[in-house]
């Protein structure tokens, strides 16, 4: 009797482990349109309305914990924010002159100054699920192909303080879609640096606007890295990083230009070809409740061959 129980227990364990390994192997072996992927999308299709309901029902709890966390953080942030406000005010004065000059130049060149977010037909969606692990930076939203959301579309969002690019749609079903965030290790974004105009000591070319590729490292969701810069790129903490709109074979997608991505926090090995620019994302990825999917491509500076 005892032997039978032991044998049964071991058989069940072996069966479960083997099933998991078969699933893993099969999932890795097949393409994105394969059977298991289709089943997964089908399950998401069924589960997403329930997830949406649960997300709405549990919103008060999330808000309560968010409020408690914010209150604790707010006390520590007052001094920093006052300092930051003073710096920004000085920056604003400098920017006003640049904005006026920019408007004049735009008129002069006949550029479409209204090429903003509204022109990209943003589809607003609610976040109904997110990955609990450090290994997948993904969220699930409540809009899918029936609302015009397609895989590859860029996604923007804002938290309480800032807004900017957060990722792209990687999977879409009828009423839900998966958004892979820029803090996921599979995502890379072509970006350029906008110099902090208040930081000009020692002097540097504020209009140089160096470019690079923004990626992240697994397990470091709050720290993006701008790579592929050169030793001549003078990048300093406080500089802003925005999408460049450029695409290349090295990148996993193409994003409209000038969407804010983050702020430079530090530069390691500055002035060398291996310089590593650490970037804090503009948006707190764990606090996103609503996102906007940019469903229409409006960007003349993206070449027609860049369709990925």
């Amino acid at each position, binding site marked *: 009797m005892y032997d039978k129980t032991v044998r049964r227990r071991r058989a069940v364990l072996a069966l479960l482990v083997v099933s998991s390994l078969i*699933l893993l192997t099969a999932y890795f072996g097949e393409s994105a349109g394969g059977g298991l992927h289709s089943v997964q999308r089908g399950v998401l299709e069924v589960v997403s309305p329930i997830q949406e309901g649960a997300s709405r029902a549990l919103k008060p709890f999330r808000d309560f914990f968010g409020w408690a966390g914010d209150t604790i953080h707010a006390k520590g942030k007052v001094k920093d924010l006052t300092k930051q406000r003073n710096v920004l005010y000085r920056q604003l004065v400098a920017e006003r002159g640049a904005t006026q000059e920019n408007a004049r130049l735009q008129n002069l060149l006949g550029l479409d100054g209204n090429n903003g977010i509204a022109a990209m037909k943003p589809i607003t969606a609610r976040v109904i699920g997110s990955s609990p692990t450090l290994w997948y930076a993904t969220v699930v939203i409540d809009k899918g192909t029936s609302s015009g959301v397609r895989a590859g579309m860029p996604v923007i969002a804002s938290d309480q303080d800032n807004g900017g690019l957060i990722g792209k749609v990687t999977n879409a079903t009828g009423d839900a879609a998966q958004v892979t965030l820029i803090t996921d290790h599979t995502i890379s974004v072509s970006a350029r640096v906008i110099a902090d105009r208040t930081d000009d000591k020692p002097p540097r070319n504020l209009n140089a606007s160096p470019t690079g590729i923004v990626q992240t490292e697994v397990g470091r969701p709050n720290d993006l890295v701008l790579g592929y810069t050169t030793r001549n790129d003078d990048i300093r903490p406080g500089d802003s990083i925005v999408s460049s709109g450029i695409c290349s074979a090295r990148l996993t997608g193409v994003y409209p230009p000038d969407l804010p991505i983050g702020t430079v926090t530090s530069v390691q090995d500055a002035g060398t070809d291996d310089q590593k620019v650490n970037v804090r994302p503009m948006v707190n990825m764990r606090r996103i409740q609503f996102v906007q999917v940019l469903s229409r491509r409006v960007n003349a500076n993206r070449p027609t061959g860049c369709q990925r």
Partner: protein
Amino acid sequence: MPALNPGLALRLLVLGLVTVLVQVSAVSQITIAGTNADLTPLVVGSVGLLCGSVVGATFGFFAGLFVDMALLQTLGLSSLVYIVCGYGAGRLRELRDPQAGATPLVVGALSTAIATIGFSIMNFLLGVDAPVSFLLLRQIIVTILLNTLIALPLYALVRRWLLPALPDDPRRRRRRAYTTGGLSPLSRA
């Protein structure tokens, strides 16, 4: 080892669905000290502790499968990790039958440690290029601490939900007999 009767199976199914939905829709979005609690390994560990290794491992497998389905993650990865959590907790019950009140706390902490570290190892084995950074270790430790804090109330909830479907276990039968008189050695004296 409790047999998997239809009532228990139904309650486990509901428990698994609710756990994953609450985790994905709410708990994952509540950040504390840069990370969030993870209910799934706690619930799998609790089920193992209450129902034994076979039911614990099976529940872990299906809970993992549902997590991977709901989040479009690599199928089989979470299942493999949660099988270990459920089976380990179940074997602890079968071999030691721990009586201490802090047992769910320890099992919760161990289940979370197995889940987070196991998940990291599996991802390394699958070729995800990741540095073993201080931040990664810190987040694993914080997740374990958070889960340890909520392990006891969560175990109480799981126990309350499953108890009506669990076969009468000898320990409870003994305790009930004492409190209703008759067999108590004190009443005989």
